[in-house]
């Protein structure tokens, strides 16, 4: 594989599309007209496709790219239906007409219109079951694009959903329950599949689905709060969702960039082949560790703050809820806790298999730390991860305006975070700072206490076995085995096995390929059926030149003849109508 920067002619197209992508993403947030929105959305989808297929000489990349291209056009189709629907009824593509139209209609119309937009935006954001493009596109794209894709592009879907919530006046409670349900399921499913992945980028891609689920939970809680007129719950829900959007963009891009450095150094993304990288690239390892802790939602980093706000929303909602909401709350709490636990399981696995232990395979080239300027952006992101964890109030205050858009109070008189609901946020910041200080103090004590003691270096304890090889280390699959056995009903792992047979056994083999059950039933099966249906028409296209020319002649003749026989055709249609 050539280094990226040596592929001159590829690069110019890549950077042009990258600029286009960037510009279209920014402009999407300002546009107030349906048609313009669709055009820019299309520019974004196409330029994203071009940047994804940078390594287009690989078939798998092209396949993933086309998968993405098709699915983003399905998304555009739904958006188009939504905008055209409103335009037909009101005669205007302006965003404001959506608001006026839904206000004048019953809530059922609003809900249907919202679903139209929601499906369109959910495909982009990666909600279940519209996520199937995501785990293909992320690993196929070059790493800097994967980071942006996961951090920014899928968030434009979240932006779209929020924008539509502002415009469409409808029954927010039912919309909220719907989003909450689909989000909890997305979150759980995403992280469950992440654990069994072997490809590091694919693992991160499934985590994007998980985090979209967490963001969606915030949005769902916010909507329910709006629907029931509970300002605090609405504020907490939307604030948590918005802050988690930012947080996810930070730690996920950090994870992808660190992965990119690993890929550049080792030329592989299969975690079963990696190991022991922390000794070769300690700084990258540390940055990956920070992001991994942040994504698990553990203090003192930023992931905890937004998850805490969402939890807070759930528990505040619980305080004066009826029976049905309470069941929904318990379901969501259960989901969110399990998501956190599974994420911890997944990232302890990913970090330790990639960076810790002994190398699992030897490489022909020298592995070394990336140069300083390549690490610099990662440090900047890590800095923000820590800052949001320590000074959450700063960032929560920035959310005042966007959140008050939803809760509908005028910002000058309404300060959303001062009715006792979020006083805790700064306390968390102090607690996190105190926590870091405590670690530092304990570490200093340890340093002083062990100053005079000698420490020796010895091999790892192997119960007396004296010739251990790196092969007997725990691998990612063995780490996840008890888990994947437990959840075997949900997960889909294809196994290829060549067992040991005979007196003089030959080489045995065992391979596993994690796959996605939803993708299998929702994408692969229908496409297979569709293909077998189209097989019936294969006789029309049998590859003979004469037949093709005949089709051409028939087409030309019919084009010429239709105007000649126009009156007859009209008469015939009239006759049919009279029947």
């Amino acid at each position, binding site marked *: 594989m050539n280094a990226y920067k040596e592929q001159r002619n590829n690069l110019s197209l890549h950077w042009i599309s990258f600029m286009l992508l960037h510009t279209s993403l920014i402009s999407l947030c300002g546009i107030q007209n349906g048609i313009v929105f669709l055009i820019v959305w299309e520019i974004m989808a196409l330029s994203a496709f071009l940047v994804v297929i940078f390594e287009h000489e690989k078939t798998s990349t092209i396949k993933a790219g086309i998968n993405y291209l098709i699915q983003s056009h399905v998304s555009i189709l739904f958006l188009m239906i939504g905008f055209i629907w409103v335009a037909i009824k009101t005669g205007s593509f302006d965003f404001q007409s959506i608001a006026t139209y839904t206000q004048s209609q019953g809530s059922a119309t609003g809900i249907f219109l919202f679903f139209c937009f929601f499906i369109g935006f959910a495909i982009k954001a990666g909600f279940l079951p519209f996520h199937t493009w995501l785990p293909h596109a992320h690993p196929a794209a070059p790493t800097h694009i994967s980071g942006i894709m996961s951090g920014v592009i899928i968030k434009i879907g979240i932006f779209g959903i929020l924008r539509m919530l502002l415009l469409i006046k409808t029954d927010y409670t039912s919309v909220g329950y719907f989003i909450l349900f689909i989000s909890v399921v997305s979150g759980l499913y995403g992280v469950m599949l992440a654990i069994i992945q072997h490809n590091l980028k694919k693992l991160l891609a499934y985590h994007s689905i998980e985090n979209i689920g967490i963001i969606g939970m915030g949005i769902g809680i916010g909507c329910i709060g709006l629907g029931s007129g509970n300002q605090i719950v609405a504020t907490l829900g939307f604030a948590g969702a918005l802050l988690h959007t930012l947080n996810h963009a930070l730690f996920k891009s950090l994870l992808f960039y660190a992965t990119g450095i690993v890929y550049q150094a080792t030329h592989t993304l299969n975690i079963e082949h990696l190991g022991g990288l922390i000794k070769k690239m300690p700084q990258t390892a540390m940055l990956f560790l920070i992001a991994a*802790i942040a994504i698990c939602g*553990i203090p003192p980093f930023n992931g905890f703050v937004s998850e805490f706000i969402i939890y807070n929303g759930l528990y505040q909602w619980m305080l004066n809820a009826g029976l049905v909401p309470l069941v929904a709350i318990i379901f969501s709490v259960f989901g969110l806790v399990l998501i956190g636990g599974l994420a911890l399981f997944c990232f*302890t696995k990913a970090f330790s298999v990639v960076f810790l*232990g002994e190398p699992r395979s030897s490489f022909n080239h020298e592995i070394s730390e990336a140069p300083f300027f390549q690490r610099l952006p990662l440090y900047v992101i890590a800095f923000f991860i820590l800052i949001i964890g320590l000074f959450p109030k700063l960032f929560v205050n920035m959310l005042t305006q966007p959140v008050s858009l939803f809760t509908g109070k005028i910002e000058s008189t309404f300060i959303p975070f001062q009715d006792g609901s979020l006083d805790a946020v700064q306390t968390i910041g102090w607690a996190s700072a105190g926590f870091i200080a405590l670690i530092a103090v304990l570490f200093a004590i340890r340093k002083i206490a062990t100053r005079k003691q000698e420490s020796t270096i010895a*091999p*790892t*304890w192997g119960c007396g076995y004296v010739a251990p090889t790196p092969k007997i280390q*725990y691998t990612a699959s063995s780490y996840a085995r008890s888990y994947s056995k437990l959840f075997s009903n949900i997960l889909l792992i294809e196994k290829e096995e060549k067992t040991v047979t005979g007196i003089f056994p030959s080489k045995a083999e065992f391979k596993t390929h994690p796959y996605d059950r939803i993708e299998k039933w929702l994408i692969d099966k229908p496409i297979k059926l569709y293909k077998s249906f189209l097989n019936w028409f294969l006789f029309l296209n049998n590859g003979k030149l004469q037949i093709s020319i005949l089709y051409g002649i028939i087409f030309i003749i019919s084009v010429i003849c239709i105007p000649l026989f126009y009156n007859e055709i009209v008469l015939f249609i009239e006759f049919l109508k009279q029947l």
Partner: protein
Amino acid sequence: MLSLVLTVIAALFFTGIVIRTKSLASGRKGPGIMQPIKDVIRLFKKGAVYSKTSSFVFQIAPTIYLASIVMAMLVVPFGQSKGLLSFSCDFIFFAYVLALGKFFSIISAMDTGSSFEGMGASREALYSMFAEPAFFILMGSFALLTGYTSFQEIFAALHIGSYISYALAVLATFVLIMVAMIENSRMPIDDPKTHLELTMVHEVMILDNSGFDLGLILTGGYLKFAIYGALIFNLFIGIIDYQYAIPLFFIVQFLMAVIVGLIESFMARFRMNHNAQFIVALTSVSLLIFFGALLMLGKFN
């Protein structure tokens, strides 16, 4: 502040009492109550052996593990007196800060490159993940019941009056003891005294730790027990004057240590591959508490 001091004092004796109970139950005299503390002090003075496979993660992990437990201890209240930190939904902070310690103890086990420790790490990650929902739903039910969301306010407002609330308190105690057993890798889930690495969970994770670091990890374990003991005490205490509350605190801690010792003496460890199911079943006990809370509040009408 008060809870911090009392919990530390309780932690000094807790594991000693557990070991003493186990010895007496098996007909031995057993070591003194302070023996675990003496062990730790001895470890603090010893030099360490580090595996040549391990990296800096292995060296910082025990410190962070202990720090996370100390941090969690700060939010635990004592009756009506707050912990050092108290804010709404502080029990989330409690659980997540403990998770950081777990994160580091897992990756430090994986850092040695030993397959035994990998096995233990995988199990620990799986079990603690399943134990978490039980705790969150339990606290959620109390939040619902009392209308508050911080440890101290919940416990101060929790009054045990009716029959249902007795049942709830018993169930909650059961859940908390079980969560404590899982968090500390004790008997029904894990046997700390087993001799075979293949059947261990927590003990096998710290096989390669030695000297000061091992001392830190053991200290963490003692504190963790006392923290859960303090939580159970808080369930029953409500707002009682200090002169009764403080002795009661030690009685509860003592009782809990004895119970833990008895469980360890008279129960066998569950089969490793059924542990996960058992722990998930704890969540259903928590759900029972939740529905009990709904009953008490008359939400079913």
